[in-house]
């Protein structure tokens, strides 16, 4: 038992540096994908809340279609498909595009719900005070919407982290791919996958905790 444990720990120790380099790539893909998703999601949410019907239709169609395509298919379309059009993307860029496009659709709905959830009365109060549309939104609606938006967005962030592992299929050396390769070279696949799993869990917990703390801070500041 102890011998076994020691040998597993030894194995883990020797692969940890490689896994950590993989983790950096995982975080890179996650960060880039999230950034694209947030920006695109916010734009789409703006479309959905717009008074122009055309914009609302565009956003609705985008969200409905993209949501029903598996991320893996989007990834292959970005990585292989765009290449056919002469737009060759690297693995990381493809992953950014695929994750960004997909999660923009989900975040759009979260953002829209958060903004609409802030009572209509708040908007009216802002208008009554003579705040313009923009400053009414930025100073009154948005700060309240943030608290509704954060928890479900954290959820999506964790999904992005997990889905970033799909790049194993296009040969990007992220955490998942490194554990897959290591499992083939060591013939100890379970040990390698468990280590990768622990790192994924740790990454998620750290991020969730950080966001949770920020959320609590915001809430506390507002009583």
């Amino acid at each position, binding site marked *: 038992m102890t011998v076994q444990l020691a040998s597993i720990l030894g194995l883990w120790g020797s692969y940890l540096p490689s896994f950590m380099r993989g983790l950096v790539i995982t975080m890179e893909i996650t960060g880039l994908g999230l950034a694209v998703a947030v920006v695109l999601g916010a734009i789409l949410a703006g479309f959905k809340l717009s008074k122009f019907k055309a914009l609302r239709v565009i956003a609705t169609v985008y969200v409905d279609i993209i949501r*029903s395509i598996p991320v893996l298919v989007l990834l*292959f*379309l970005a990585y292989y498909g765009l*290449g*056919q*059009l002469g737009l060759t993307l690297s693995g990381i860029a493809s992953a950014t595009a695929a994750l960004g496009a997909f999660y923009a659709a989900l975040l759009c709905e979260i953002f829209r719900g958060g903004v609409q959830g802030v009572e209509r009365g708040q908007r009216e109060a802002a208008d009554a005070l003579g705040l313009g549309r923009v400053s009414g939104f930025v100073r009154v609606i948005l700060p309240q919407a943030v608290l509704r938006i954060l928890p479900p967005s954290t959820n999506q962030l964790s999904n992005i982290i997990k889905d970033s592992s799909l790049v194993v299929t296009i040969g990007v050396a992220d955490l*998942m791919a490194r554990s897959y390769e290591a499992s083939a070279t060591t013939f100890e696949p379970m*040990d390698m*996958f468990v280590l990768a799993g622990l790192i994924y869990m740790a990454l998620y917990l750290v991020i969730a905790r950080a966001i949770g703390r920020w959320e609590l801070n915001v809430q506390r500041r507002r009583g």
Partner: protein
Amino acid sequence: MSAITLYTGAMLQGAVITLELTAGATVVSLIAGAAGAVGRLYGPRTLKAFIFGYVETIRGLPAILQLFILYFGLTQFGIDVPAYWAAFIWLCLYGTGYAIEIFRAGLQGIPEGQHEATAALGLTRFEAMRRVIIPQAWVAMLPALTNFVVLELKNTTLVYFIGVQDIMFHARLGVSNSGQPLAIYGIAALIYIVLNGTISRVGGILEKRAAIAS
């Protein structure tokens, strides 16, 4: 063009496998998930803790890592699960974790006053669940259940990696033989859009009906 029609046909054959896996895993997951949620909410403490741990593990790990653990990982212990069954078992285990959460949230969403009213009337726990709590939770859970089926269907895309001949498997085969990734993955996307769209549509109809009934 003919290559594309050829592989579209193959992908549609793959769709049968995809749907088979989705439907089977959905049924198993929903049954196990309902039982798990009851255990999570009303079971003894150790059971609650175990189910909590299970759900968090399933939700915390990347899907593909879970599949690899089942298919490749277990070989380390001499357990050799055939690809199709590894895929199916994984979809069930994964789905159960998510289904537990859906049922738990659904059951917990019923206000305490409803439980109290059933107790005050002298209904048994079983009757209260059956006549009052579950019929209400069910309506509230329908949107999440629709999403659940869509999620399981999307998950099946990963099983090509271990050699199960689903839509993606044939798509990749077609791409490597024809060199037409845009068209073939585009068609794959279209098939998924139709399948998921149908599921959402059916879910929407059920929701509407449930809303009218109550």
